[in-house]
């Protein structure tokens, strides 16, 4: 079945005109937009955009949170054969310059004053940007810049009705959307997808999990991220389910509980934050509740995953799990907003086995998937009942996988990108002549046909001893501890592995309070010897784990330090999707890396940092460096 996004919209509007398409919480009430209303809105915006001069094939930038009218704007642009380019709403103004100039963008539809201000700030660098429309007029009444107008003005235009004829012209292989990858190095790259590539994968994913039009989804991640775009846009139109937009980013957890989604998607950090919250609140609970929680969670850990995977469980365990469900798991799922979840996915980063098992043990069907912007997300998914913490599932229909001689994973499917926009060289690097996409990930299919990812292929290095060094693998193992928020491992072409640790302020702060350990802010807490001892304990456990792995035993961490500031995307230390930029961090904190390898006990550092409001300042501290015992490599000897 080949179709386009606007045609799917019209199909839904015709088949189920009064069924809800989008909901948005506004003024404390969920406001519903039916498929018919949505189609009407899209038509109006499309006609307005056509009258404003938006041409077939031209790009239009969309910046904002998940808002019904921004979704409608993307559909409207696609109806005209134009290409919506969603950008990250929390990006700094200067980060918009490259995409806008690169894609020769003349039109932008944005959410509010914050985004308008950013676009006006960079306007001198983007001379091609002609018109900016905004959804929320608050604070913008007195702006008189040329080309700036409210979205309502676009709706009011009495324009010629070109909607139906333009929709009919579209070919499924036309470009449907472009996503700029966050890019750990250099300029971001525009990933070009057609209606067919996105919808083919969206539909394959929907068939895999038997999604229906009855699903409820909460859209709260940036729409510029293909993950959110697939779940709340491509699959939304493919299945015709309801997408709910939270009131604001800050109310997402409250709204989650109200909506009770049946199909849920989040990167591991969201699940981690939820669990940290539960753990902290449980520690403040009364002794009886604590005991009950501990006891029930022990049962859940033992029995829960088996129940979810459909294995047979002894009668006594079944009774215990039933009672636990009544007393703890059910209410907990309800508090988290997961009462109705039928399928939940996590992707983007590796998820800790404890974290993963926690959600599965309380009866939430949490699964992992593997994919990227370039593959329109769906490559491997974990089937129900066959879920393992350390793999990412089986290739789904239409996907072929192979591993090349260097251990790099190659993928072939209908969902592969058409190319990087205006970047032939980069396209040739990732797309082979016979249609394979180089993922850049090192991994392999295990005996049961499940894919296991180790690290980025280019990041896998060697210690000077020749032992394999997989930094991400080590960092993830560290991050699985609740006290560690981020970790950065160094070791390529060096004798030993050393690491920077970022503590989790909330978890460690709580830990310190429980021990009556006073502290004055992040830097102070990070510098406490007690905290260093706590982290050293975590590091030794990781070393013990690594020692047990034949391939990676040589890469145990010998020294580490606790960083004095949180790694932040605003300081260029993380990507917008919160992945550590190992290279940039290594350069910025060169003195610390040198101190680690020079065997120093402490090192002074001063770092410039940017605050949330855009001002700059600096933090300085003298960091203590800790040694950790390295376990002898047992298996090598045998």
């Amino acid at each position, binding site marked *: 079945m080949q179709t386009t996004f606007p045609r799917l919209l019209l199909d839904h509007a015709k088949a189920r005109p009064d069924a809800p398409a989008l909901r948005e919480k506004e003024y*404390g009430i969920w406001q519903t937009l039916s498929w018919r209303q949505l189609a009407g809105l899209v038509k109006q915006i499309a006609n307005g955009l056509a009258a404003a001069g938006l041409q077939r094939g031209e790009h239009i930038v969309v910046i904002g949170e998940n808002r019904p009218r921004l979704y409608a704007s993307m559909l409207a642009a696609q109806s005209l054969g134009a290409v919506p380019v969603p950008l990250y709403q929390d990006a700094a103004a200067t980060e918009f310059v490259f995409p806008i100039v690169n894609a020769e963008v003349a039109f932008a539809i944005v959410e509010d004053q*914050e985004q308008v*201000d950013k676009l006006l700030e960079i306007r001198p660098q983007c001379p091609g940007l002609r018109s900016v429309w905004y959804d929320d007029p608050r604070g913008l009444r007195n702006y008189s810049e040329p080309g700036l107008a409210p979205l309502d003005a676009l709706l009011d235009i009495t324009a010629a009705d070109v909607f139906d004829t333009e929709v009919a012209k579209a070919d499924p292989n036309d470009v449907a959307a472009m996503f700029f990858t966050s890019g750990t190095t250099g300029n971001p790259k525009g990933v070009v997808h057609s209606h067919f590539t996105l919808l083919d994968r969206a539909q394959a994913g929907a068939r895999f999990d038997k999604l229906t039009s009855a699903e409820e989804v909460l859209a709260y991640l940036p729409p510029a991220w293909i993950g959110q775009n697939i779940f709340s846009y491509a699959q939304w139109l493919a299945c015709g389910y309801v997408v709910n937009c939270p009131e604001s980013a*800050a*109310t997402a957890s409250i709204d989650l509980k109200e909506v009770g989604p049946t199909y849920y998607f989040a990167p591991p950090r969201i699940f981690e934050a939820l669990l940290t919250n539960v753990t902290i609140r449980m520690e403040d609970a009364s002794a009886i509740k604590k005991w009950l929680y501990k006891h029930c969670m022990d049962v859940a850990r033992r029995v829960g995953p088996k129940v979810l995977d459909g294995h047979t469980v002894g009668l006594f365990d079944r009774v215990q799990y039933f009672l636990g469900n009544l007393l703890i798991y059910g209410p907990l799922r309800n508090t988290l907003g997961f009462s109705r979840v039928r399928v939940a996915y996590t992707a983007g980063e590796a998820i800790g086995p404890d974290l993963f098992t926690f959600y599965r043990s309380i009866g939430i069907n949490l699964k992992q998937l593997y994919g990227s912007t370039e593959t329109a997300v769906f490559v491997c998914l974990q089937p129900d009942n066959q879920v393992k913490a350390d793999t990412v599932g089986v290739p789904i229909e239409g996907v072929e996988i192979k591993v090349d001689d260097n251990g790099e994973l190659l993928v072939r499917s209908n969902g592969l990108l058409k190319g990087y926009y205006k970047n032939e060289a980069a396209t040739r690097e990732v797309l082979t002549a016979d249609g394979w996409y180089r993922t850049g990930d090192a991994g392999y299919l295990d005996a049961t046909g499940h894919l296991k990812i180790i690290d980025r292929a280019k990041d896998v290095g060697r210690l000077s001893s020749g032992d394999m060094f997989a930094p991400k693998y080590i960092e993830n193992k560290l991050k699985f501890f609740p006290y560690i928020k981020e970790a950065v491992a160094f070791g390529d072409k060096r004798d030993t592995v050393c690491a920077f640790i970022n503590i989790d302020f909330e978890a460690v702060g709580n830990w310190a309070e429980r021990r009556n350990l006073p502290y004055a802010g992040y830097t102070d807490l990070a510098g406490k010897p007690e905290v260093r001892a706590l982290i050293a304990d975590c590091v030794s456990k990781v070393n013990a784990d690594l020692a047990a792995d034949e391939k990676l035993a040589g890469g145990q961490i010998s020294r580490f330090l606790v960083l004095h500031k949180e790694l932040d995307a605003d300081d260029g230390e993380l990507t917008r999707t919160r992945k550590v930029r190992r290279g940039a961090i290594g350069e910025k904190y060169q003195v610390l890396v040198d101190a680690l390898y020079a065997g120093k006990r402490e090192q002074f550092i001063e770092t410039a940092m940017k605050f949330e*409001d855009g001002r700059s300042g600096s933090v300085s501290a003298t960091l203590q460096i800790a040694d950790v015992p390295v376990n002898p490599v047992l298996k090598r000897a045998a």
Partner: protein
Amino acid sequence: MNTMASAAMTAPAVKGRHIGAVILDVRNISLAFGGVKALTDISFDVREHEVRAIIGPNGAGKTSMLNCINGVYTPQQGTISFRGKTFNHMNSRQVAEMGVARTFQSLALFKGMSVLDNIMTGRNLRMKTNLFQQAIRWGAAEREEAAHRESVERIIDFLEIQPFRKTPVGRLPYGLQKRVDLGRALAMEPKVLLLDEPMAGMNVEEKQDMCRFVLDVNDEFGTTIVLIEHDMSVVMDISDRVVVLDYGKKIGDGTPDAVRANPDVIAAYLGTSH
């Protein structure tokens, strides 16, 4: 949120808005508590849609001035006229009915009630149904409550406090409580808003947020704002005209730049050598 940028962007826009005729005129006000003269012969006016600041060192009589306008104190001498009508004896309720709302320096919120309920109390003046109807919440009372709830929700949206709608006010941090206090005053849909040290005790970020909300209120609803403030930089950034009090006397009045250059004001703030 990029508060700095938006505050900076709003500031020039505010300067461009239309400032109307005199809405509040204070003439020769004197107020004494027994032998203590809190205010002596103070006169100034407030124009419609402007942001008017009253500044001065501790004990200068700023809050007393606000309390006179608000009808809490009745001055021994002088008149206060609102939209050309002069009143000699007024109580707080009459002032509120005329469209003057205020916030408090030391918060006067109902700590155990939710944010929503606290702001709802600000609608009290506009409720037409009686206590009995409200108690059984039927017919007109129910319709009325829905209408009031809607306007309260608009304020919650405006002040960006949606996540705390149902949270008891006592559990919120100080900066947010101040915002709720502002929300309750806004619920009255006032013509003139009196703010008693809205930024006191806040950290820099909270102050910037509050500045933005004050300017947004002024911009969005055209509300005339009279504010007392300690922090000179805040006052100079957001107000159109400033009155300076010292020991109950007016020592300066004019635009922020004029006031900043006034030698009496400098003396009052920094002291002089004799």
